[in-house]
């Protein structure tokens, strides 16, 4: 069940899957690579951190990602200022030889909500520096529009707090963001299970980025497969156009030519 003819275009990149997956929180690297394969994703995220000077020869995440199959989307997770995010993005570009960056500038440690002011400032600088910028943003249509106008290649509103698994908390905001956007809308954060993924895709968003929803499942590989099908199902349902909702029943079987039996 490939996504033939329905690629996700982000900047100059085309992805055959609308699901983007993370590399965090997996119980083991073996589980992660199996989950990545089961998800059908073609883009995976990584974070950027200092090497351990006490073990500078250790393996890095790059040893576990098949770059023939996956595009790597480095993130600026953990940054609280535009300055740190921009330097992290530039380091990631040098390390990975990619212009892709998931811009994440956090404003608050408990909610992990983005700092809109710092995100906008970093986005402007990174776009000017030639990056393909995918910003993590609140489910705020105004901030999304501003990021788009700055030249971001996509916008990535949260559906619920990072790692919360609460699902699509405000489908109306997500729908409004999608309706107004001219760049891809990728729901980033909050998806907890397959139905959440399907609901997001049925709203018409272009893709989903998820990490904990897969990695923290009891069986991450099976959940990755479930997410693959949920994204495909939600996307197809959106393209198919759902029936109108109605208050009363409307029989599916013919209402005439019914048999009659004698009533006692």
């Amino acid at each position, binding site marked *: 069940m490939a996504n033939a003819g329905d690629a996700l275009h982000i900047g100059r990149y085309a992805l055959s899957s609308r699901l983007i997956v*993370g*590399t*965090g*929180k*997996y119980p083991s690297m073996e589980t*992660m690579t199996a989950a990545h394969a089961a998800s059908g994703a073609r883009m995976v*995220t*990584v*974070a*950027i*951190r*200092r*090497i351990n*000077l006490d073990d*500078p*020869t250790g393996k*890095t*995440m*790059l*040893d576990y990602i098949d770059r023939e199959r996956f595009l*790597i989307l*480095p*993130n600026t*997770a953990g940054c609280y200022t535009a*300055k740190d995010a921009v*330097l*992290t993005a*530039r*380091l*990631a*570009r*040098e*390390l*990975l030889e990619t212009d892709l960056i998931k811009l994440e500038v956090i404003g608050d440690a408990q909610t992990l909500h983005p700092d809109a002011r710092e995100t906008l400032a970093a986005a402007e600088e990174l776009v000017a520096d030639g990056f393909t910028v995918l910003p993590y943003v609140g489910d705020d249509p105004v901030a999304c529009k501003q990021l788009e106008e700055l030249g971001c290649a996509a916008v990535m509103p949260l559906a619920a707090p*990072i*790692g919360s698994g609460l699902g699509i908390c405000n489908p109306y905001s997500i729908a409004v963001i999608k309706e107004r956007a001219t760049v891809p809308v990728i729901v980033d*954060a909050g998806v907890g299970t397959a139905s959440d993924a399907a609901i997001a895709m049925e709203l018409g968003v272009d893709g989903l*980025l*998820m*990490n*904990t929803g897969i*990695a923290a499942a009891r069986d991450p590989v099976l959940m990755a497969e479930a997410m693959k099908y949920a994204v495909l199902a939600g996307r197809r349902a959106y393209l198919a156009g759902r029936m109108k909702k109605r208050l009363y029943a409307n029989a599916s079987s013919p209402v005439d030519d019914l048999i009659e039996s004698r009533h006692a």
Partner: protein
Amino acid sequence: MKATINGETRELPDGLTVGTLLAELGTAPTGVAVARNDCVVRRSEYDSVRIGEGDRVEIIKAVAGG
């Protein structure tokens, strides 16, 4: 000469290049990226850029994340 590597102050030989620093740490240059005083040092510059007194050097790698 003192410089800060990933937040740790270290005594380093004068004129140390980025490439030599990575070699002395035992780090494969392909798995990391380096910034000196908030500017990325290109891989092609590892053998020409020297670390100076008081410099702040960041050496990063890719790790798990979402």
